[in-house]
């Protein structure tokens, strides 16, 4: 168990370093075990330096920087064992426009390389615009959900329709 965890740590850390730099368009980051003698009881710290900034613990980053760093961690685990489906529920909310773009670049490249199918819930127009297809979920009848296929133009209005 100990050896397997250390292997996983090394593997995920390699992915994390690469994904962080890809998502932030620069900078560097790594995963640190607080107690590498006892990996099974150890904590995991995320050390990161966005482009042009000093290296620090994740807790000192801004809200959006923390969210993007957490996404880099989630996908570094995902890449070590890609699954056929990935579901993301409003993970883009704290991100600014250029981080949303880079995040979607990453998702798109994963969907091409590992043929993973993504279901992505979002209120963000940029994200909607980059989907290959859109489904609107509506409650035309109060309390009763229905699914309809929509175009981007409709989708933006959709978010508006009660």
């Amino acid at each position, binding site marked *: 168990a100990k050896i397997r965890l250390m292997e996983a740590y090394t593997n995920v850390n390699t992915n994390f370093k690469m994904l962080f730099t890809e998502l932030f368009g620069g900078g560097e980051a790594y995963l640190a075990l607080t107690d590498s003698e006892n990996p099974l009881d150890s904590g*995991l710290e995320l050390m990161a330096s966005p482009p042009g900034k000093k290296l620090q613990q994740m807790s000192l980053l801004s809200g959006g920087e*923390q969210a993007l760093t957490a996404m880099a961690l*989630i996908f570094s685990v995902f890449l070590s064992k890609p*699954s056929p489906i*990935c579901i993301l529920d409003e993970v883009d909310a704290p991100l600014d426009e250029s981080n949303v773009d880079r995040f979607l670049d990453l998702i798109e490249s994963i969907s091409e390389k590992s043929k993973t*199918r993504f279901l992505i819930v979002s209120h963000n127009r940029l994200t*909607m615009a980059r989907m290959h297809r859109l489904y609107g979920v509506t409650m035309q009848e109060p309390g*009763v959900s229905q699914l309809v296929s929509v175009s981007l133009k409709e989708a933006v209005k959709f978010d508006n329709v009660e």
Partner: protein
Amino acid sequence: MKFTKLKITGFKSFVDTTLLDIKQGLTGLVGPNGCGKSNIVEAIKWNMGEAGPSRLRAGEMNDLIFAGTKGRASRNSAEVILTIENIDNSLQSYENNVELEVSRKIEKDGGSTYTINNREVRQRDVQILFADLAIGSRSNAIVDQGQVGQIINSKPQERRKILEEAA
């Protein structure tokens, strides 16, 4: 091995049978607050064998069945079916099946029944099927609403657990 279809009936706000094609690439789910987007995510997690109601924003499993509205009567059962294409035969134990229909059904006060291609199986069998596909109701590949915030605010000990999925 691909996920191709999702069918929901009577689960939370999806009282009428709802069909979602799961196609290659990125599929967006959009709509106003409270219309049922996160309920779809929970339908999938439930189908994959999720055993804890609190992981599905429910007090007990009965809360997953359509509870009724001013215009519609409440239901007594719910069913979610996930269809998986196995043309490349990557699922060893289901070699002869080109397609698998995994169903989970619940009756009010009656517990859940699982079937794969209409053959009744145990919860464990379904959980193992999905684990072999590197997915499951608690997998990192399903990121719930608010979960990124929880990872950010979690203690280092908690975060190490994320690594265990890759082990």
